[in-house]
Structures are given as C-alpha cells and as structure tokens.
C-alpha cells in the first residue's frame, strides 16, 4: 500500500522566497489497524532474538620485520686527532704532541698524577698484596656433608600382573641401559596370564622399556657380556639358559636344550674370561654348576656337582644360589649355597672331585650374594639370613667381619666399584643400606627406605654413583649416591687393607687357639684311653657316656683354668 501525499505548486511560484507561517496541525492520514491482515501471519512464541551492545572488532596479527643484530667488537686504531692534524703525517703528530706537552695544565696534572702513581708502584714492589696465603691448605670438601642418595627414576613393570625383579645388569659401556629380569619365584604363585617378558630400560625414559626380551620361561638372572655390550645371557625359571643379541631382536638367538640344562631355576649366570669371550657358567639349586659356550648351547661344556663328599652325588649336593667370578683371579671361583656354605673351587682340576677346594660356613640360610672386593680380591662379601659377612680367603673357620643381625633379612649386596670400603645391601623390608666400614662398622652409614615392598636385587653401575634396586612388585628404582660415598677418599685403600689385616690376624689367633685346645683335648683323651682296661673300642661310646665325658672334661678344664688364675694372682 503506498502512502502518497500530493501537493501542487504553481510554476510561477517556483523559486520564490519561502514565507513560513504557522498553521494548526492537520490530520493527513489515519491508518487504522486491520485485523484481517493479521490472519496472514502466524504468531511465533517464544522468539529468540539476540541483541548486542558492543562494537564490532576484528583481530589482526602483525609481524614486524626481523631486526638482525650482530655482536662484534670494535678495535680502536687511531686516536681522535683534531681536524687539522693528519694522523698519517708523522710531523704533524709530533708537532701536536709537542704543543700539548708545553701546555701548563698538562704539566701540573702530570706532576700530580705521577706522585699518586709512584706511591702505588712502590706499594706493589714492597708487598705483593694479592699473594695467596694458606695455599697448601686443601679444601675441606664432602667429608662434612652428610651422606645422602636421591631417587632419580622408577621403572615399573608395564604388565598387569606384577612380577618381581630378580636380576639386574648394567650395560657395560655407557651405563645408560639397565636390563632387568622379571619372574615370580614364589611357589605356585605365577598365573597363566603372567607375562614371560623381561625388559631393557633406557634410564632416561621410564615410561616404556627400550627393548623386550621374550624368553620361553621367565628369567631369573641375566648378565651383559662385559666384552660385547650387545650380548646378554640369562637363566630361566625352568633351568634353561638363553642368550640374546640386542641387534637381532627380542627373541633369543639360542636356548639350551631342556635335557641338558638345570633341573631347577637358574639362580645366577656369570660370564667368564676366555679368549673367545663366549664362556659363561651358571648355578642352580639342583646342585650343579654348568659351563656353557654360548655359541653352542645345546650342551654344557662342563659339569660340576656340588657334593662336598666329592663323589658327584646329586642327592647330596648343595643347591647353589650365587656365583662369584673375578676376572683378576681367573682360576678360582666361588659358589654360595642354599645351605649357607660358600664353596671355593678351582676351574681346572684333574678330576671333578678335585675341583672343590674348601668351604666356608657361617650363614644360617641361603647365601644370596657373594662378591669379592674389587680392590682386595682376597676378601669377599657374603649376604644371607640377617647378616652380611666379610671373609678373608685364608681364614676358613669364620668371617673376619660381620654386621649385627638386622631386622629383616638381606636379599642382595655388592661392593662399590670405586670405594673399597663401601658396600650396598638391600633388605626384604624395602631398605637400601650403604655401609662404609671405615666410618662405622656397627650400622649402615646411610639407610634409605626405597619402597614398601621387599627389594630383591641390586646392581651398582661402574662409576659407583648410580644404583639400581629391583623390588618384588617389579619396580626398579634408580638412585644417585652422593659424591662423598662414591669418590675414592685419600688413604682409603691403606686404611682398609690395614683393617682387613687386623681382623684377619685376630681370627687367625682365635683359630690357632681353638686348634691348640682341641689338640690338648685329644692328647689327653688318648692318654686316658690307654689307661683304661677292657676293650672299649675308640669312638664307640653311647651318647650318655659321651655327655658324661664332656662334662668331666669341661669341669676339669674349668678347674685347671681357675687354678692357673689363682696362681697368677697369688
């Protein structure tokens, strides 16, 4: 509908001056609402209508052109000569200089400055004010800082069912990789779903293992070849030995045949020193020590049965739990047994029976760790039941030093490769102890609660600073030991060797005294037997008679001792 208002204007009035005048309002148009028009529309209720009160803005990004800056030095070549002097001309410069020298202010200021200067020069010549005093006094470092260790990383078993870490081995070259053997040693605990894999971790990356090792049965122990860092040898739960080449992938390169391997889990496998670098030997609780050449794992190269009666009888053999081999003493090796006895053997003997040289008894339970001191190979450390003991090879009766009984039993130990007097032990309550026997013999120098579960294994890296411990729930914790405990102190070797000698001597004296007593005892009892009438055969006494005899001997000895003392006092 168009609304139009029409007005007319005469042509002759166009352009004439407007004469405005007032006039009352006039209704021009009145539009009334037409309801019928509303039917053409559909009401819409409710209605959303957005309203904005802000002004429109737009976002732009601006990048200025890069301003390149360069740092460089300026070499001052020639001074600020005044305009009239040409620096090239020598004459002009000389003339300028002479003019300056004649200047009054120059003379006075130079005279004044030189007096000050002379004073300082003389001072320098008189005394060297920057002389270093107390140069010989060495800095007191580290020895006062309290021992500490920091956890750097924790590597967790990625599987659902957690297995315990029973073996750890550091990569020989860089120490950046750690191989861990996962298995469950508890009786009938492993479920069918339990994964068989073991892992190699890169210490920088705790999220995922760097490489997986897929054996046929869970691994109990594993070891990197110190000569070739790509080769690993490992012993499994079912007694088989397998070896891996990390360049070739996760599957073992070769596995030993079941018939020829151990009958019990392989607890320890150690590389030997040989020309080919492929010899290793393994120990297991079935009482055998087997030598292998990794190139041909179908059959062991040699076999030794740990029968102390030297008859090779498997039924009487002692189960082996730990092995010790030191490349500085390649002809000997030692085995730690389940029965608490350390057996020392020589590698090359004419008959297998002659391999066993001697035994050391001292522990009440299985010897979980056995290691020679890297600096003093004649002394070795054993760990079993609730104590750690240090032995000297020459003294077979008892250990020369031992810790007191701890609250929980010790599961693994090793010497520090850099400090001869430091060794580490791990316990079944999750505590890592660092012992410094030069500092304190009664208690550990540093005791750390690593985790809540039991710690099963321990391995120190060659630099002595990084320690890895494996727990029962499959967590490997990497710790950094403070520098005080991982740097060789002055005089440490001498002090420690003196300590070992002292203890060895003490034990020797005790041993000889013991022997003397036994000898005296025997000679007296022989004399006594000669006097006896009747044909009571030697050695055939009933237990009661034995007891009676022992009592008599004891009381007579006590009486003798008392008499001797009273003689001395008197």
């Amino acid at each position, binding site marked *: 509908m168009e609304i139009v208002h029409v007005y007319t204007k005469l042509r002759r009035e166009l352009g004439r001056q407007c004469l405005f005048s007032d006039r009352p309002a006039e209704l021009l148009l009145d539009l009334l609402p037409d309801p019928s028009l509303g039917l053409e529309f559909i009401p819409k209720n409710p209605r959303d209508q957005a309203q904005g009160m802000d002004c429109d803005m737009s976002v732009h990004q601006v990048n200025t052109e890069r301003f390149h800056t360069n740092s460089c030095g300026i*070499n*001052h*070549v*020639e*001074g*600020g*000569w*005044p305009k009239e002097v040409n620096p090239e001309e020598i004459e002009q410069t000389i003339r*300028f*200089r002479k003019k*300056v*020298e*004649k200047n009054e*202010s*120059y*003379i006075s*200021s*130079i*005279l*004044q*400055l*030189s007096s*000050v*200067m*002379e004073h*300082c*020069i*003389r001072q*320098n*010549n008189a005394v*060297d004010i*920057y002389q270093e005093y107390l140069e010989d006094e060495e800095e007191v470092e580290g020895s006062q800082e309290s021992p500490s260790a920091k956890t750097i990383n924790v590597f967790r078993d990625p599987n659902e069912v957690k297995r315990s870490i029973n073996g750890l081995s550091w990569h020989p070259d860089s120490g950046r990789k750690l191989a861990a053997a996962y298995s469950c040693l508890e009786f009938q605990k492993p479920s069918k779903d339990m994964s068989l894999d073991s892992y190699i971790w890169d210490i920088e990356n705790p999220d995922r293992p760097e490489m997986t090792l897929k054996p046929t049965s869970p691994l109990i122990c594993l070891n990197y070849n110190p000569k070739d860092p790509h080769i690993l040898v490992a012993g499994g739960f079912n007694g088989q030995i397998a070896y891996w080449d990390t360049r070739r992938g996760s599957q073992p390169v070769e596995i030993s045949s079941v018939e020829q391997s151990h009958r019990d889990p392989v607890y320890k496998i150690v590389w030997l020193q040989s020309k080919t670098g492929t010899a290793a030997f393994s120990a297991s609780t079935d009482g055998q020590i087997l030598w292998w050449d990794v190139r041909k794992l179908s059959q062991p190269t040699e076999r030794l049965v740990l029968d102390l009666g030297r008859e090779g009888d498997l039924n009487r053999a002692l189960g082996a739990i730990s092995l010790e081999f030191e490349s500085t003493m390649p002809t000997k090796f030692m085995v730690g047994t389940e029965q608490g006895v350390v057996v020392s053997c020589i590698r090359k003997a004419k008959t297998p029976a002659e391999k066993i040289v001697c035994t050391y008894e001292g522990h009440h339970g299985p010897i979980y760790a056995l290691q020679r001191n890297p600096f003093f190979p004649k002394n070795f450390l054993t760990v079993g039941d609730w104590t750690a003991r240090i032995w000297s090879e020459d003294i077979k009766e008892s250990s020369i030093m031992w810790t007191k009984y701890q609250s929980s039993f010790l599961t693994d130990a090793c010497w520090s490769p850099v400090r001869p007097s430091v060794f580490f032990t791990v316990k079944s309550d999750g505590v890592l102890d660092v012992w410094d026997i030069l500092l304190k013999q009664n208690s550990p120098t540093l005791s750390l609660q690593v985790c809540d579960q039991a710690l099963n294994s321990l391995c120190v890296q060659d630099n002595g600073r990084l320690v890895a411990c494996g727990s029962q729930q499959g967590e490997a914790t990497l710790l950094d030991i403070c520098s005080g405990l991982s740097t060789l102190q002055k005089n440490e070797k001498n002090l420690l060797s003196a300590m070992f000698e002292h203890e060895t001597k003490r034990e020797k004296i005790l041993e000889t005294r013991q022997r003397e007593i036994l000898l005296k005892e025997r000679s007296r009892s022989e004399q006594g037997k000669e006097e006896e009438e009747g044909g009571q055969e030697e050695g055939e006494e009933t237990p009661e008679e034995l007891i009676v005899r022992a009592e008599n001997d004891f009381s007579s000895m006590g009486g003798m001792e008392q008499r001797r003392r009273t003689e001395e006092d008197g």
Partner: protein
Amino acid sequence: MAEVEETLKRIQGQKGVQGIIIVNSEGIPVKTTLDNSSTVQYAGLIHQLVMKARSTVRDIDPQNDLTFLRIRSKKNEIMIAPDKDYFLIVIQNPSD
C-alpha cells in the same frame, strides 16, 4: 717541562715497570714508552674503561669521583691515574 721528564724517568726506573703512556681526553697518546701499535690499543681501550668506571662511581654516589684504577691480570698490573684532561697509564709487572 723538565720536571715532567724527570718524573717520568723516575717512574720508568722503578722495579717492574714495563711502560708508561700519557693519554689526553680525546684518546690521543701524548707520551709513550711503548711501541705505537700497543700504545694506540691501550689508549683506546683504557679510555673507554675509565669512562665507564668513572660513570659507575658517580652513579652510585654523585659526590664521589674516580681517583685511581688498578687492573690486576695474570701477567701484569695496569695502573691508571685519571685526571680531568689526561690519564697516566703505567704497566707494571709486580715482583716475583
């Protein structure tokens, strides 16, 4: 004039003194006992250093002023006595 010469000779005669340079406020070496290239190098570099040192001292306390500057290095000691218009620089190798 002669006194200046005498003074400088006396300084030069002191034990360990390796060289003397007198530089004016514009960085021109007026008098020197070293060769030209070292002189020019010393003059330029030390001039900047003295300016910086002086401004530092005055920034910390405006009433203060730089009276002497000593730079001890491994091989020798450079001593600078600044003035309004001139610097006197002496390089000494202290005894022992």
